[in-house]
């Protein structure tokens, strides 16, 4: 303690000064409301300019792409990747699961190979953003699976997350390629997600941007904050601390609850729009799920 206290003081001071700098870069979330492509370019440039230490193709590793200590812990955890069990379990479920009409889930959403990479997408038929896990759930509902057997946020979640992990592994190495078609509803969905990213909410008055943009790479307690790029590419992720496979929707729900807001319902339009925004920003990043996080 004798030595640690003064060192901490000084480190804290330097870090404190650094913090003001991170937030200084000018960025206006209201830019380009009708042109997501231009906006995404500006948004990514904010990170490229402020964090030159992060290589473009390492944004998909979350905090492990820029923090050496975290990366070496990550290497240790990856000695025996806990994701593998989930992939195997998910594959089995995917192959064996039958809807009431006797057909597999692939009859509803298509083959496993590359399926994850097609999501999220905007469907002009219903004007909605589609999320992979919700589409699986809707396959069950539409095929008449009884309500208590449908994979929900609680019941059947482990099966759903395992299938999600398997499907992610079947798109491993493909690039995120989210399209925003020329449909005003698609642009609106993107802008709605963007607004969610920048809007302060909850009792703690926090926005996603507060943590993952203006203060990215800094620490809340021992948690290093990842950046605004690569939010979606590794999902689902196995979280060591929770000993659990976590879907993207589940993670976004958790982050929102942590601001002490009453979160929107799981898989609601709001969360799907947020996912659409985040995934569009990730275009060009390599899908590397199911990833591992502490």
């Amino acid at each position, binding site marked *: 303690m004798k*030595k640690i206290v003064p060192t901490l*003081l000084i480190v804290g*001071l330097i870090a404190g000064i650094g913090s003001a700098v991170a937030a200084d870069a000018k960025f206006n979330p209201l830019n380009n409301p009708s042109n997501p492509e231009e906006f995404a370019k500006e948004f990514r440039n904010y990170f490229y300019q402020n964090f030159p230490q992060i290589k473009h193709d390492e944004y998909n590793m979350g905090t492990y792409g820029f923090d050496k200590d975290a990366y070496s812990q990550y290497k240790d955890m990856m000695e025996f990747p806990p994701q593998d069990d989930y992939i195997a379990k998910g594959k089995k479920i995917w192959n064996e699961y039958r809807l009431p009409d006797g057909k597999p889930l692939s009859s509803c959403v298509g083959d496993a190979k590359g399926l994850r990479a097609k999501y999220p997408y905007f469907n002009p038929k219903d004007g909605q953003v589609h999320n992979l896990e919700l589409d699986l759930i809707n396959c069950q509902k539409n095929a008449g699976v009884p309500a208590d057997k449908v994979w929900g946020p609680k019941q059947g979640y482990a099966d759903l997350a395992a299938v999600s992990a398997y499907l992610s592994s079947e798109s491993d190495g493909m690039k995120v390629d989210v399209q925003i078609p020329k449909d005003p509803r698609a642009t609106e969905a993107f802008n709605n997600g963007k607004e969610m990213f920048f809007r302060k909410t909850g*009792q703690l*008055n926090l926005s996603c941007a507060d943590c993952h943009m203006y203060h990215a790479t800094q620490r*809340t*307690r021992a948690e290093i904050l990842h950046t605004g790029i690569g939010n979606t590419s590794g999902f689902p992720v196995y979280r060591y601390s929770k000993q659990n496979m976590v879907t993207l929707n589940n993670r976004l729900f958790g982050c929102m609850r942590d601001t002490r807001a009453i979160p929107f319902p799981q898989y609601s339009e709001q969360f799907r729009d947020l996912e659409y925004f985040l995934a569009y920003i990730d275009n060009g990043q390599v899908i590397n799920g199911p990833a591992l996080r502490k």
Partner: protein
Amino acid sequence: MTPKIRTLTTTSAAVFLAISFAFAGSAGAAEASAKPTLTQDQQAGKDIAFSKSEGNCLACHAIANGELPGNIGPMLVAMKIRYPNKEDLFKVIWDPREKFGKGIIMPPFGDHKILTKEQIDQVVDYLYTL
């Protein structure tokens, strides 16, 4: 406190002061037992500041003897010198948006009813010991 110290309000001055405190602290830390005991209010304020479910100031600020502090906000040190007027310090915690603008990440502890007025008073009492 000399008038000279009281006029030191710029960040660089505060930082300089804080660093000299830090070095002074390294000598003092040798006799950890000589640490002054806190009054009841100060201790209550410290508990609030350190607790994850209440103030959780450590999430963002380094505070002497606080473990695993975040580094989002400036270190909380030499508060009495930087905020000679207690009311100003209270106001920053009640609603930091007034002083730092509405984009600030620090939650408005009083305005959003995260802490009560009494709790913030206790936190201020504690910060004055830093």
